């Protein structure tokens, strides 16, 4: 699916997910675009991560995330979400259902309205890039083994078990190296947020 344009939200970030859902549901035939964009922004990356884990690829994860968001927005507009205050659980339920269908090879995508596609596309697009020189510099600061495990995890898409078998280490050891390497990298790049 193409990314037609970036959709930005002007909704206050402090607004709870439930309030966003209620506003979208209350808007009826006049879509609350800002609230919809904000809800998509909040759940987009979680859905991509969920989809990649369940379906095994970034592209499949993005497709699933887009479809889950479109289904969610359509149901909210139509007043078909019973408990908007539990919108996170609803979105997860939609994503699980869609992932189950895809795994069962019923992978046909429902047609998506062009405006809705624009609405969800930016929320599941590639994350904002980090300056290349900073990434290189911070990777160079890692210990050899940490750099190896981080690259094998993030790029070669190997699990801790795969890496352990390949390098003659224990899975537990690889998990510890991975954790320390990622934490150090986040620290170096200033990505360490509220929770570490």
């Amino acid at each position, binding site marked *: 699916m193409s990314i037609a344009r970036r959709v930005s939200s002007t909704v206050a970030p*402090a*607004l*709870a*997910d439930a309030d966003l859902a209620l506003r979208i549901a209350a808007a009826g035939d006049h879509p609350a675009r800002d609230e919809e964009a904000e809800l998509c922004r*909040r*759940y987009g*990356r*979680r859905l*991509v*991560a*969920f989809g990649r*884990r369940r379906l095994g690829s970034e592209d499949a994860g993005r497709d699933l995330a887009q479809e889950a968001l479109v289904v969610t927005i359509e149901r909210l507009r139509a007043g078909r979400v019973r408990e908007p205050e539990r919108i*996170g*659980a609803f*979105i*997860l339920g939609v994503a*699980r259902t869609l992932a189950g269908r895809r795994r069962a090879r019923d992978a046909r995508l429902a047609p998506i309205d062009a405006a809705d596609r624009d609405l969800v596309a930016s929320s599941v697009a*590639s*994350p*904002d*890039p*980090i300056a*290349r020189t900073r*990434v*290189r510099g911070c*990777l*160079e600061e890692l*210990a*050899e*083994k940490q*750099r*190896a495990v*981080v*690259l*094998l*995890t993030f*790029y*070669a898409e190997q*699990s*801790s*078990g*795969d*890496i352990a*078998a*390949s*390098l*003659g280490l224990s899975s537990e050891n690889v*998990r510890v190296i*991975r*954790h320390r390497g*990622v*934490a150090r*990298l*986040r620290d170096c*790049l200033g*990505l360490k*947020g*509220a*929770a*570490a």
Partner: protein
Amino acid sequence: MTAGTAPCTVGLAELLDYLFDAIPSERAEALEDHFFGCAACADRIASLERLRAAVAGAARRAEVAANVNAAFLERVARDGLTLREYRIRASESVPCTAGPEDLVVVRLAADYGEVEEFEVDAELHDLERETVTPLPARDVVVDRALDEVILVFPGELVRSYPRSRWILRLRGAGVGGRFEIGPFVMDHTP
């Protein structure tokens, strides 16, 4: 991100397990239930996704020097990078060079047995200025299926070196005590 959410109970290590490992489905589903109601986890997942994309991008552009395994080489080959590979056994020497967009792969082949800890003592002998620069690497890993220490270097970096001789020695420790393997020699022409 959102107001009124419960405190986050999931640590970075567990989040990494979820994102990258085959954990039991019951545990995965319990974590998903948490993630889709936790603003802190949403932020952290977004941050890790950003980091993952950045690291993968650097690897895909052959910008990283690293010690890797065969799975890494398979991935870069799938991504269409030009691999310039040099497989060397102890006491051998090979001529080497690199193109600007190559990924230079140095495969140090030996019988590594049960050895657990390695370091590489590399020396770059500049044949034009007649200087020697030590380039040590600690805590190096071995691809056990291949019995090779695999090192990758950006072609751009390799090309920046003058006409030189690279001498690499592996030192390690295992059941039989300390040992040394090598030298592995590369004669580099820019």
